[in-house]
C-alpha cells in the first residue's frame, strides 16, 4: 500500500439508529487530532468533502461556540449544494457538535454530532445526524442528502420500476 493512500477504502458504514437519525461510521489510520483538524480546517475540508460529487468552492469554518460554518460544492451537474449551520460544542479532538441545514430545505435543521475515538493509532469517527422528525430525515433522504436507505428509497425504487 502506498504510504499516501488510505488503507480502508469503501469501509464507511451507514445505519439508521432511530427514526430520526442517520449514523455514519468510519475508521482512519491517523491520530484523533489530525482527523479532527481535517474536519475543521477549510483547506483540508476542500480536499475531501466533495468526494466525487463535485468541487468544494467554499469551506467556511468559524470554529468557536456559536460560530458559523458553510460548505458549498458545485456538483458535477453544475448546480450548487450548500450546507451550513452553527458550532455548538467543540472539544478537540474528541467531539464536535453543530447544527446543519441543507439550504434547499431550510426548515429541516439537523444536529450532527461527530466523535473521534482513538485506539492503537486508529481513530473511529462517528457522524450522527439527528433530524427534527422522521419525516425530515426521510425528506433529507429523498432530496438527496442522505440516501441509500430504507423507506423513502424503497418507495422511490418501486415507483421508478412501476412507471419507467
Amino acid at each position: 500500500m502506498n504510504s499516501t493512500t488510505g488503507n480502508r477504502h469503501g469501509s464507511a458504514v451507514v445505519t439508521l439508529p432511530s427514526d430520526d437519525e442517520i449514523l455514519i461510521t468510519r475508521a482512519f489510520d491517523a491520530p484523533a487530532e489530525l482527523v479532527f483538524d481535517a474536519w475543521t480546517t477549510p483547506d483540508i475540508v476542500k480536499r475531501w468533502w466533495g468526494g466525487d460529487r463535485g468541487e468544494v468552492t467554499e469551506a467556511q469554518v468559524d470554529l468557536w461556540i456559536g460560530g458559523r460554518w458553510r460548505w458549498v460544492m458545485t456538483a458535477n451537474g453544475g448546480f450548487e449544494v450548500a450546507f451550513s449551520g452553527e458550532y455548538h460544542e467543540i472539544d478537540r479532538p474528541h467531539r464536535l457538535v453543530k447544527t446543519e441545514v441543507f439550504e434547499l430545505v431550510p426548515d429541516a435543521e439537523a444536529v450532527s454530532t461527530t466523535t473521534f475515538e482513538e485506539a492503537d493509532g486508529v481513530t473511529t469517527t462517528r457522524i450522527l445526524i439527528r433530524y427534527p422528525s422522521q419525516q425530515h430525515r426521510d425528506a433529507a433522504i429523498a432530496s438527496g442528502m442522505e440516501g441509500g436507505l430504507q423507506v423513502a428509497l424503497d418507495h422511490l425504487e418501486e415507483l421508478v420500476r412501476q412507471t419507467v
Partner: protein
Amino acid sequence: MARTPTTTDAFSAVAEGSRRELLDVLGTGEATVNDLVQRLGLSQPQVSKHLAVLRAVRLVSVRAEGRRRWYRVNGPALQPVYEWARSFESTWNTRLDRLDDVLAELQAKEKKERQP
C-alpha cells in the same frame, strides 16, 4: 443531471413529505383529486396545490377523460432523484476515502519533515 438551484425542481418537490405520500399513492395507479383527498386525508386545495408543484416539475402527468382528470406518476422524471438518493452511501464512502487519502498524505509529509 443538470439542474438549477431553484425550489421548483424534482429534488425539492420530493423533499416535502405530503408530496412523497402523494407520489406513493399515485405509484399504485392513476387517481383523481377526489381519490387522493380520500386516501391522504388532506383537503382538496392542499392536494391540488401539491399536484400543481409535482406537475410543474413533471413528476406527475395528467390526462382528461370526460370531465375527470386522472393523475399519474411520470417515472422517467423521478429517475434522477432515485439515482441521487441511492448514491448516498457511496457518496459518503467516496468522501471519507478522500479524507483517508488526505490523512495518509499529511502524515507522510509530517514524517518526512521530522527527518533531518
